Each structure stands twice: as C-alpha cells, then as structure tokens.
C-alpha cells in the first residue's frame, strides 16, 4: 500500500480553513440578541436572552 510521507503544505492547509459552525451560530445569535438603545446622546447595549 502506498504511504504518504509528506504533510500538506501550509497553503494547502489554508485552502480548507473555515471557522466552526458553532462560532458562526454564536455570532448570529449574538447579533440577534444585541439591542442598542439610544437615550438622548447615550447608547446602551442590551443582550437579550
């Protein structure tokens, strides 16, 4: 059986790089939960559950 003795190059490793689905899901949920309330000249952040 043919053995591979080389590792993929850094460029090849970078080709299939993507963040985890959980991270994306967290960001989308965070975005939905974040609410900015303006009062006069102030802005308040609220993260709703």
């Amino acid at each position, binding site marked *: 059986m043919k053995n591979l003795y080389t590792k993929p190059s*850094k460029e090849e490793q970078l080709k299939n790089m993507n963040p985890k689905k959980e991270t994306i899901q967290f*960001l*989308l949920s965070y975005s939905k939960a974040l609410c900015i309330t303006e009062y006069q000249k102030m802005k308040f952040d609220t993260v709703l559950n």
Partner: protein
Amino acid sequence: MENAKATDASLVKAYIQGNENSLSILISRHQHRIYSFIYSKVFDKDIAEDVFQDTFIKVINTLKRGKYNEEGKFLPWVMRIAHNLVIDHFRRNKRMPMFENNGDFNIFSVLSDGDLDIERQLIKDQIECDVQELIKELPEDQLEVLTMRIYKDMSFKEISERTGVSINTALGRMRYALINLRKIIEKHNLILTN
C-alpha cells in the same frame, strides 16, 4: 439568488436596517478569507476561532451602533479589525506566555522547583569540602584575598583596605588565585561539577 448578487455595501445597509439574514450572508461570504488570514498568523485553530469571533463581535457592535462609514470597503475594514486583534493577542501572550505540552516539548523539563535533590545536594557539599581543602594549597596572600572575596563576600575596596594593598593588587591576587586553583584541579585530574 438575489442575496448572492448583493454587494457588501447593500448587505451592510440591510443589516443596519434590521435584516439579520444579511449578516449571515456577509459572514459566509468572507469567513474563509478572514479565518485563513487569522490562522496564517497564529497557527492555532482554537486561537484563530477566538480571534475570528472577537472580530465579528466588534463588527456587529460597530454596525449596530451606527458607527460604520460605508466606503465600499467592508472586507478590508474587517481584515483590519482581525489584524489588530491578532496583534493584541501576541502582545498579551508576550506579557503572559502560554506554553502547551506536546510530544516535542515539555514545560516541566524547563521549569523545576530549583532545589537540588538529596543526591545532588550531597555532591554539592562534597565539592565544597574539596574546594576548601584545595585552596589551602594557594600562597598565603592569594588565599587571603580569595577567602575574603568568596566566603566573606567583601568588595575589593574593603579587601584592599583590610590587607593594606591597592585594589589592583587585590584584583591581581584574586586572578592568580583562580589561575592557580585551576592548575591544581588539572594537576590532580579533579572533576568538580555537579
């Protein structure tokens, strides 16, 4: 299909107006470039994941607060945020370096409690005894300077005052004491290392 064609600028605008789906499109459109950029700097998937997340948290906060100026440069702007966060990561790590144990390197091979174990302590005591015997073979004036400097921890100024010779003479005697000590050690083939 429409969303796929939409420009970054129009998606950002839609997102600011409350269309959460636009953010999802923006992330999936650019995630690969941003994540690979971060990974190419940090070479650690977990850290790259953290930096990626922090980058988009900043993006979301800025967009929702209405602080983003649309100049048609959404991706360069996000890349700049990621770049700054990578720099922050390295700065933080420089102050508080984190080591991970892996097959090639074990932190405990570098860190130790500094105390000698019993065997090494015995060897050290023996060596110190041997050295004390050896220095007795030195000429009186050299022995005097060496004892004052090493065992009494006196400065050369104090030694010169005590022995009534100049500092240079005291320095010279110390130098000759060490040279002679080395000669004695070589002559007797002694190994004085722990």
